[in-house]
């Protein structure tokens, strides 16, 4: 029986709970689910390079690809498995013996055996029955375990699965000797509350290691992964930049930083490496890295509005939980429509001009009008130019008022 939890009570009790970094492991699937994204293809050299970087940055397991695809893909996985990395290397398989044979052929130490657990998938996609699914799990786990592999059983579309059957699915995997169950929110349709209760039920009742595989279709991949961890999941399946089918998966860099700065769990990753890792994957996957991408976007530490800019000039903690250097980014200040006095004084000083508050106030108005007509922030040389013509105008009017002769009077 599925236990009835008082979801909201249990949920709120998990707020601020202490988590142990030793109990959380990252299994990165940039090379499998990331590459499976429509339009994305990595060259084999890129796959190998990404695997090396992931290992260097400290992930625990790499899902290297789908061996049964053969050809190029198989070669890349073989190569990665032969690199003698610190992390585990996993091959992705359907619940078919020949797929597992292909994985074994590649020399991986771990396999994921994937099969749908929802009736809609079982009936409409696999065109089989629940019994057939359970039987396939038994046969394949047993087979893979015979080769001494680490085995993850992936419950595809777990979120739309009947909970009773999902428990049966997990029990079958556990009894067959599987090392963990991957909970796949294949369509990204759970919120953190539903994720929490479903994962908690599986852990409490079946007692098997759980890996979270979340999708970002409704913008909840990271939150759901964290909800899973709070329910007791020990693995998270991530990708660099959240690369993955449709709206993508849980982004590696977001999860690691959220764990560190929101949940207080430092996994010990070398985060200063994040920006370059993200840039590499963005280029290899032929995708832009949005300047506002959480954690690694190029403009996250670029300030314009007076409210924020003047705050971080006093103390970055006023608006930041971590520093730009922590993720390999750079900080800068630009002037635009929302710039104010303090920011302008600072920026001008940076450009080599000492100006008064009054000047800054007048300059703010001019800069605002200019940015609205240009529809963008100003370049540094435009700021200098704007200031120079403002000086000329104000000193000539002052000269005029005073009737004096020195148009370049200094204060």
């Amino acid at each position: 029986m599925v236990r009835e939890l008082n979801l909201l009570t249990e949920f709120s009790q998990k707020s601020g709970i202490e988590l142990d970094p030793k109990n959380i492991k990252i299994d990165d699937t940039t090379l499998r689910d990331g590459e499976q994204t429509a339009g994305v293809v990595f060259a084999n050299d890129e796959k190998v390079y990404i695997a090396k970087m992931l290992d260097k940055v400290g992930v625990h397991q790499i899902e290297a690809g789908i061996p049964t695809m053969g050809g190029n893909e198989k070669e890349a996985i073989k190569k990665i498995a032969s690199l003698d990395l610190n992390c585990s290397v996993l091959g992705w398989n359907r619940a078919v013996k020949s797929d597992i044979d292909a994985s074994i052929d590649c020399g991986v130490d771990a396999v994921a055996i994937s099969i749908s657990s929802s009736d809609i998938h079982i009936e409409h996609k696999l065109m089989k029955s629940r019994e057939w699914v359970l039987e396939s799990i038994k046969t394949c786990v047993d087979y893979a375990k015979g080769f001494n592999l680490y085995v993850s059983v992936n419950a595809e579309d777990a979120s739309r699965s009947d909970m009773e059957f999902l428990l049966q699915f997990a029990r079958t995997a556990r009894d067959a000797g599987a090392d963990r169950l991957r909970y796949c929110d294949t369509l990204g349709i759970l919120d953190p509350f539903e994720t929490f209760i479903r994962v908690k039920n599986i852990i409490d009742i079946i007692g098997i290691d759980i890996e979270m595989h979340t999708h970002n279709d409704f913008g909840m991949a990271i939150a759901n992964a964290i909800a899973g961890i709070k329910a007791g999941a020990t693995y998270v399946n991530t990708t660099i930049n959240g690369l993955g089918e449709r709206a993508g998966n849980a982004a590696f860099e977001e999860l690691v930083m959220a764990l560190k700065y929101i949940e207080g769990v430092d996994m010990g990753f070398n985060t200063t490496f994040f920006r370059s890792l993200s840039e590499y994957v963005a280029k290899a996957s032929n995708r832009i890295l949005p300047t506002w991408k959480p954690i690694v976007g190029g403009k996250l530490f670029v300030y314009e509005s007076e409210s924020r800019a003047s705050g971080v000039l006093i103390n970055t903690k006023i608006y930041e939980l971590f520093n730009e250097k922590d993720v390999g980014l750079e900080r800068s200040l630009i002037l635009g429509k929302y710039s104010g006095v303090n920011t302008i004084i600072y920026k001008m000083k940076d450009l080599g001009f000492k100006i008064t508050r009054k000047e800054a106030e007048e300059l703010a108005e001019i800069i605002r009008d200019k940015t609205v007509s240009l529809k963008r922030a100003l370049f540094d040389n435009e700021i200098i130019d704007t200031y120079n013509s403002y000086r000329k105008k104000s000193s000539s009017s002052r000269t005029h008022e005073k009737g004096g002769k020195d148009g370049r009077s200094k204060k």
Partner: protein
Amino acid sequence: MEEVKSERHINIIDTTLRNGEQTAGVVFSKNEKIRIVKMLDEIGVPEVEVGTPSLGKIEREIITEIMKDKFKCKIFAYCEAEPENIKYAAQCGVKNVIINISTSDIHLKEKYKKNRTWAINKLKNTIRAAKHNDLNFIVSAEDATRADLEFLLKLISIARKKGAYRFRICDTVSRFDPFRTFLLINTITSAVNIPLEVYNHNDFGMATANGIAAIRGGASSLVVSIGGLGEGAGNAALEEIVMALKYLEDIELGIKTSKFREIAEYVSRASSRAIPVWKAIVGTNIFAHESGIHADGVIKNPKNYEVFKPSEVGLTRQLVVGKHSGSHTILHKFKEFDIELTDKQANDILGLARDMSVDLKRTLFDKELMYIYNDYKKKKKKQD
């Protein structure tokens, strides 16, 4: 499981034109601002935050112009707590204002070099000005997620007593996850009787989830922006919140979602920011299927891999052929070209298409598939 999904009335307020524009480097022209209000109004967004009157003459001109139009939606101007700022708002003809005050000690002490009493007085004075100018107001607590809870509750009580009809909790630095959001909102709603609104940032990718957690915790309003445009990593995206409420929480806001892609595109151009193809809800890749498993599933029944129809958000479905395609996709794709392939032919072409895709490092155009097919047929003919 407890049922939270009732007939509660949930409000959303869009801040694309205020916090969205406040993003470093983003500037909208007057025409664009007016157009965006029109679009939001047309799809049924009930409340829109249009700008910051204290910013300067040019901003006030734009807001005044917006106020001349007749919109169904309620228009808000944003004011940092300061009596003078209220005057500027009144000059523009707005009837509703948001009064924002920092509430965390780090903001009060470090940024303003002041204390909590100063904040309370500032708020009271600004509220007085708002009443004097006959404006309706809500109060917004900046950095509320780092504020002392008792002080926050005190401020909320003051705001309520002084006539604020709603209170906004800002997670200014993205400090919260859904668990903490839920707990805080739940705590406040049980302590003070005032409608709560929550404002989230996406620094750790949790803006939308935190919005949903706030609703579950008892909040009745969320601040959103189109495409999530906003300072830093942005805010909770309008399209994500609306669709998540509808499909994950069974809360229907009655918004015309079929215009989402169009509006996102407009704001993308006006803010000079591309919509990533993978952007949740409105990205062009959301309904593109390549991998054998997914494409095969979608061909058999879209429900296998889709929660809602592409047309619901103004997108279209596409099957693309690449490294991860399966033979079913090839069969289906050629059927679209009016060519019936045998299973053997489909498998052969699949092999060729995969190799080409790895070689080109991308998926194939329809034309390229036809080239492969023609070459393949020629070769077969020769062999025969």
